[in-house]
């Protein structure tokens, strides 16, 4: 009796182990290249209904940090429902980028560009990834793909601030300061930032502050950064030519500035690039 019971219990234990494994296998099956993912929600209903459902599901999973599940939701749309639905690629590319899965992110952004050749946001974000992963013996070679993407976005929309900012940052990395300054001054000239600055500096003027975006205002910060880089170059020249007999105050200032360029003012780590959020309207900053 005991032997029989032991056999039975062993079989049941095996069953309990197999059942979750089988369920898990179902979940991951969809990711195999040859199999379509299992996306049963609202099966048999019209594509817009199913797309809307999976976009909602993906959005909620993404916001709660369930990135694998969110990717699966977007993949349901892309592979099962409508391979031309751009927002699903955007959602999935954002997750791949966040996970530093850059190859897949570039693949999705490239598909967006194939589907919509005027997507400045896709060019811009692909440019950022290319800037982060670019390889080559020279800086120019390393940033060639990024430059091509930023310039493609600018060619489509000459006033598109994220790509202008990012192209200028690559100029800074390549120490092409004059070109970078020209772009940042162009961003400021085409915005209301200067007008807002004048009004803010004059509290007695009751004129309502004009709208401007945080991205546009960043141009001032970048101009400051470039001038700091130029200052550091001048300090370095001074320290080189004085060969150890330099003024200690300048030595100290140069050291502090050099440290800033290793941390806060570092431009080649991607932290000053402006990432497009694919939203129709940019967040506006007002003086209120």
């Amino acid at each position, binding site marked *: 009796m005991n032997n029989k019971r032991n056999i039975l219990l062993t079989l049941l234990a095996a069953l309990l182990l197999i*059942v979750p494994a089988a369920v898990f296998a179902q979940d991951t099956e969809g990711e195999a290249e040859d199999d379509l993912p299992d996306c049963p*929600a609202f099966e048999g209903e019209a594509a817009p209904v199913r797309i809307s*459902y999976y976009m*909602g599901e993906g*959005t909620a999973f993404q916001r709660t940090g369930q990135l694998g599940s969110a990717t699966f939701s977007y993949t349901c749309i892309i592979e099962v429902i409508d391979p031309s639905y751009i927002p699903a690629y955007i959602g999935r590319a954002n997750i791949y980028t966040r996970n530093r899965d850059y190859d897949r992110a570039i693949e999705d952004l490239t598909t967006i560009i194939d589907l919509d050749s005027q997507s400045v946001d896709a060019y811009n974000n692909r440019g950022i990834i290319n800037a982060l992963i670019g390889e080559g013996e020279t800086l120019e070679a390393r940033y060639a793909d990024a430059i091509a993407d930023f310039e493609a976005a600018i060619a489509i929309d000459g006033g598109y601030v994220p790509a202008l900012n990012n192209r200028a940052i690559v100029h800074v990395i390549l120490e092409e300061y004059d070109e970078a300054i020209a772009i940042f001054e162009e961003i400021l000239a085409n915005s209301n930032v200067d007008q807002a600055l004048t009004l803010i500096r004059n509290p007695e003027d009751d004129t309502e502050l004009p709208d401007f975006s945080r991205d546009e205002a960043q141009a001032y910060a970048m101009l400051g950064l470039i001038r700091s880089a130029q200052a550091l170059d001048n300090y370095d020249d001074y320290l080189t030519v004085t060969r150890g007999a330099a003024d200690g105050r300048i030595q100290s200032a140069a050291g502090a500035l050099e440290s800033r360029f290793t941390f806060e003012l570092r431009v080649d780590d991607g932290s000053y690039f402006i990432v497009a959020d694919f939203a129709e309207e940019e967040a506006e900053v007002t003086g209120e």
Partner: protein
Amino acid sequence: MRTRLRKGERFAVPLLKWTLIGVIAVALLWTTTSLSQAQLVLECPDLISELEAPTAQYYVGIGNAYFTQIDYTNAIAAYTCALDINANYAPALVRRGYAYTVQGDEDRALADYNRALELDPNLIDAYNNRGVLYMTQGNFGLAIGDFSVVIAINPEDPVAYNNRGIAYAAEGSFNLAIEDLEFALELDPEYAAPHASLGAAYTALAVQSYNEYRFISGQGEFVLPRRQPVDIIRAVDEDGVIREFEVWIPFLTPSTD
């Protein structure tokens, strides 16, 4: 001028002080926790994405994502957003009803299922989940009725056969249960639940036979515990209650997709 404290007072004053500090700390903690819990409940604008115009289906997707993460409160909030867009959207009512069921709010769950069935008398998910709710209430007859309606609408729905089989098992009709469960497997051999349900039903049948033997031979009655088939198997030799219908609830398959 300092007042000299007696020995008892020297202990009593710090004790009172620390008790007060403790009470204040607990009150602050409680307030903070309550506030953070209150902030956790999302509202419709919080759920909007710049990538997609919100529709009833969009909010159902949001709700299902929260539901799978066991965040029933926000799942209900999202389903309610779907119903704000379209008050007659039956799939959102069914899903919200199931979230209420899981939360133990049976009245609201039943109201949602009934409303969904008013809007769409052929909505299989609503019958199925209402049947599950009836089962949790011990209303086997009503549950069997709802699962039977599903079978009438779709005679090839393995979930309905599984669930009706469980309902039959819960009321002690093991042969009817086994018939339904075997048919569920015939319809979909890959459907896992009926395999476990069938094992449990056969085990219960075995216990019933053992009980008859023990009754005839003058020994006491077997009893079965709740939960998994393995517990039922163990109970063949140990103790449990075959008549406690809750033992069958985990074998039901609700509609959640």
